[in-house]
């Protein structure tokens, strides 16, 4: 089963590249490119960049509590962005120059083991990883 994914709309090239890769490969079902937090549908995972002005630690924690896996994207060398994502305990971190296919496969791997189980109790025991 293909996991469902949403991205947070971003002016940075990584987001358009990720959307294009999702469309081209079909690795995930891309349900939305969110402009506002309220645009986020029920999804398995969301990918958001630190450049999004409304992205907060509390917001990311709310998503995770709802059972949504969160992948954070940061510009190379942006320590405050990395610290913000670490405080929010995102499921995975990527530098925004990462290959979109690597990100999509990470999303699939993050989500796939938990698809058959009940949502909301699935993130326990996981630790965030960082790819640069």
């Amino acid at each position: 089963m293909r996991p469902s994914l949403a991205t947070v709309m971003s002016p940075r090239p990584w987001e358009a590249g990720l959307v294009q890769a999702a469309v081209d490969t079909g690795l995930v079902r891309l349900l939305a490119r969110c402009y506002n937090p309220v645009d986020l549908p029920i999804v398995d995972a969301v990918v958001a960049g630190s450049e999004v002005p409304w992205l907060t630690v509390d917001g990311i924690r709310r998503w995770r509590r709802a059972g949504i896996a969160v992948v954070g994207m940061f510009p190379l060398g942006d320590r405050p962005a990395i610290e913000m994502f670490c405080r929010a305990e995102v499921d995975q971190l990527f530098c925004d120059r990462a290959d979109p296919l690597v990100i999509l496969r990470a999303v699939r791997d993050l989500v796939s083991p938990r698809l058959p189980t009940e949502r909301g109790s699935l993130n326990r025991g996981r630790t965030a990883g960082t790819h640069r």
Partner: protein
Amino acid sequence: MDPLGDVSGGDVSGWPEGGRDRLHGHPDLDALGRRLRLEMDETLRAEQYAARVSAQRRSTIRDRFLLAEDRAESLNVEVVDGSDIHGTIAAVGADHIVVVHHGRHCWVALQHVVAVRRPTP
């Protein structure tokens, strides 16, 4: 008096410690740092809005069908002969879509699509 004006009313919740982290050095730099951060947030908001507008302007009807396929969405597809084809978008090809309704598959050329509507609830 703060020579840079009051910048405490802005939304700094996205910043470390709610924007209260201080620049090390002269205390006046604290207000300057907050102001710069708020201006940066304004710039980021404008950039995000521009990204949305740009994405909308570049989108095609095929993009909309791809989204419908991923969402398993039911749509009414009006074609050139005036008829409506209702069903779930099961697949999107390079030049066609596949609409499924009650197990029946219908292949529609993208160039024959006139309008797409969500079914009225």
